[in-house]
């Protein structure tokens, strides 16, 4: 291959493009760029993106369903490390998934930048000159008339303008084009995809999502220390939290007692008193499902509820070692709930309680269970532990787990586990002079999700723009129409040729033919108001 040939390729002629092995670094770079931005690559990347999203819907994702993910890992000890290395527990932030969409974005930019330039030129260009032989076009019509050629062209120009074509009148022909907005729609659609991604990224980087369980009657102030779980974006700063506070004044729920969904709870309403800042007045809001409370740019959602039995534990000396509501976590739809109560300061021995709360206690198949979610026949059933509950060594542990490593279960004289089965108001004396436990009452708690999602309006605007662009790119029909007149020397008959080219894909040929026929008819029989 001579030097002249290499210069000639100029990146346009695919046939003459050398293979990557023959190229220097710069040429290789251009070759790669061309491959990445080619339509075929974009298509392959789109299909790869679809394929790559599949595992995330089959393998439980750690950040969506952390419990499911850890259960899956326990159940598949051999596969779990391999899956973990492949990023299958967080597919959507894994390097390979990111690689696909980043490549797709590069491909997209590489596609729309040159296309925008082409479009910019096309926008200002005049409709192309009429081809010599209009009968070769897919849509064609012709007639002869005695009208002067110039009259026909003037009428044609007027008619095409009326039909919103951009029109250029030449010596013996009229060129017209319309549907310029189709490509604009296309470009807007592609640009909007970038806008959506930017919005999505802003939310991921600067937003946060936290959860807290608040017992009815108690309050919350928006401070990092108050959250039970908190997932900040990577660029989120703790001091950005808005200084609001709220108190749950009341929580109401409707239980369905009949029909196919008996036992289901509905119409959750949590009445909040809140202050936007410590200095602002107290306002009230009814927090419901689908009706979050917005304070500044933070939103507060009601996403869960449950029971918190109220207990008082007095130790062997008669001192109060524990008092207050304890959050029990529901384990099923009947709100049978599990919880742990710890009184490490009790003397002579530490007291730990672990067990279940049944809102509507019933015996089913000999097993204690709850048969309904509402408080119809509430019963608390706990077993008792004493010894070292592991709370004094300073290491943090979950409030929902009792550390039994150095504690022992208290047994009755006949060797069975000691159980406290209590109804509201009951007091039970503990064995071995450990003290007493009183079941004072039952409160409710709400799980509140608090989140800030900056960029959500950016993302929404992006999708709406994308939809508008999409509609333009799918339904605007770019068309070119030409009218040419010919009058042979010495004849008084004018031959009028019409031709049209539908440049949309999937366009409707019948509609095009109808339009051409209508244009022809208007030239033949001029409308009264046209010249």
């Amino acid at each position, binding site marked *: 291959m001579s030097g002249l040939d290499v210069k000639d390729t100029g990146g346009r002629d695919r046939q003459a493009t050398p293979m990557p092995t023959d190229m220097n670094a710069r040429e290789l770079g251009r070759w790669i760029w061309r491959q990445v931005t080619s*339509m075929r690559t*974009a*298509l392959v990347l*789109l*299909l790869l*993106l*679809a394929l790559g*999203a*599949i595992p*995330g*819907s*089959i393998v*439980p*994702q750690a*950040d*969506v*369903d*952390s*419990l*499911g993910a850890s259960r899956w890992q326990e159940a598949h000890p051999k596969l779990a490390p391999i899956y973990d290395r492949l990023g299958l527990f967080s597919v*959507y932030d894994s390097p390979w998934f990111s690689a696909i969409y980043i490549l797709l974005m590069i491909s997209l930019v590489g596609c729309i930048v040159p296309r925008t330039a082409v479009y910019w030129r096309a926008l200002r260009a005049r409709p192309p000159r009429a081809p010599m032989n209009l009968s070769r076009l897919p849509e064609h019509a012709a007639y002869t008339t005695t009208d002067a050629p110039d009259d026909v062209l003037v009428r044609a120009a007027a008619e095409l303008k009326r039909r919103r074509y951009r029109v250029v009148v030449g010596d013996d022909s009229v060129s017209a084009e319309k549907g310029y907005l189709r490509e604009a729609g296309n470009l807007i659609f592609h640009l909007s995809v970038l806008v959506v991604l930017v919005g*999505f990224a802003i939310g991921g980087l600067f937003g946060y*999502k936290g959860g807290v369980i608040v017992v009815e009657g108690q309050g919350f102030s928006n401070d990092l220390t108050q959250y039970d779980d908190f997932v900040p974006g990577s660029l989120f700063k703790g001091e950005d939290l808005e200084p609001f506070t709220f108190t749950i004044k009341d929580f109401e*729920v409707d239980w*369905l007692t009949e*029909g*196919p*969904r008996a036992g*289901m*709870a*509905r*119409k*959750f309403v949590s009445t909040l008193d809140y202050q936007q800042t410590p200095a602002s007045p107290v306002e009230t809001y009814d927090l419901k*499902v*689908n009706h*979050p409370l917005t304070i500044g740019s933070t*939103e507060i959602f*009601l*996403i*869960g*509820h*449950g029971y918190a039995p109220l207990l008082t534990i007095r130790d062997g000396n008669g001192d109060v070692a524990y008092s207050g509501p304890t959050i029990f976590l529901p384990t099923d*739809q009947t709100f049978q709930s599990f919880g742990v109560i710890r009184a490490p300061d009790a003397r002579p021995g530490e007291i730990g309680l672990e067990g279940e709360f049944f809102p509507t206690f019933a015996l089913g198949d000999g097993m204690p269970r709850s048969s309904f979610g509402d408080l119809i026949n509430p019963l608390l059933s706990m077993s008792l532990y004493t010894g070292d509950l592991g709370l004094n060594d300073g290491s943090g542990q979950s409030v*929902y787990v009792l550390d039994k490593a150095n504690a022992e279960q208290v047994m009755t004289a006949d060797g069975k586990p000691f159980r406290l089965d209590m109804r509201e108001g009951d007091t039970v004396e503990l064995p071995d002079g450990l003290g007493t436990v009183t079941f004072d009452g039952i409160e409710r708690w709400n*799980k509140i999700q608090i989140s800030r*999602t900056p960029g*959500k309006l950016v*993302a*929404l605007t992006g*999708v709406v723009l*994308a*939809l508008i662009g*999409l*509609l333009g*790119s*799918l*339904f605007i029909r770019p068309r070119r129409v030409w009218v040419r007149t010919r009058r042979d020397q010495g004849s008084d008959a004018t031959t009028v040729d019409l031709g049209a080219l539908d440049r949309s*894909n*999937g366009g*409707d040929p019948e509609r095009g033919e109808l339009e051409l026929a209508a244009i022809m008819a208007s030239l033949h029989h001029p409308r009264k108001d046209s010249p």
Partner: protein
Amino acid sequence: MTNASWEALSNQAVAASGVVYFLALLAHLVQWAGLRKLPADEEVPSGRIAMAGRLGVLLTVIAVGVHAVALLGRGMAADPNRVPWGNMYEFTLAGTFFVGLLYLVFLRRFGLEWMGPLVVGFILSMMMIGVIWLYEPVAPLTEALYSFWLVIHVVSAVIATGAFTLGGICSVLYLLKERSTAERGYLARLPALISLDRISYRMHAFGFPVWTFAVLITGPIWAHQAWSSYWNWDPKEVWAFITWVVYAAYLHARATAGWKGRNAAIVALVGLATLWFNFIGINYFSTSSQHSYAAPVSFSPSRSEPASTEVPL
């Protein structure tokens, strides 16, 4: 009327529309059995064969009307009254209704008479699946579903599903006709390959923006209201996104790579497969979907929700 009588009316209307769809199918079969013997290019504007075809369309119109009554009955039977797409059974009823309605709406415009037997057969089979395996008595919805967005999100998803299904039927026929060398019979009488391809494209071009609206606009808005996050990578969302990407690839291929005909038809059918898998399959494969029906109610500490949210899409 009481709720129970509305529910009974709905069940009767489902049965009645099933019978009428079946009669429509029979009429179309009579029509096509007659047409089989004639050369493919012979038009039959009158006579018994044409009569059977017109009867098939008329019966389809009646069946779709009765089908609408069935949907109305489901909605009126609920307390409080609501849109009739709150569970899989109702979604199947609504989805097949919109397939039938879109077929009738596009019938004249695109000349879809030849699609009659397939559309009616498809609706009939899906309704049977719905009645036999998915039936549930009318029940109140879970809390998160009582939202304005249930109407707009689900109805747009259902309309898009109907359009994609019609487009997919065209694509299947395209692939069959492409391989067929028969000079008579059903395939030979279908519109030319190029028309099939174009009709398929236009169904998809109609369905895609509607799907975009359902999955990427109303879905996230509602998810943000109900679950505090507009995109959760929930399995149903993931598959809706996969469907979107596949159909985007289809349109992209048609528009720029010049993939018409066969390749485009294959991509369209992959899209349809992901769509229907998402509707039915994902409920049985995934236990973590917030859109799930089949999964037992999970109430784990990390996902404690007031409503075990059941959303059809």
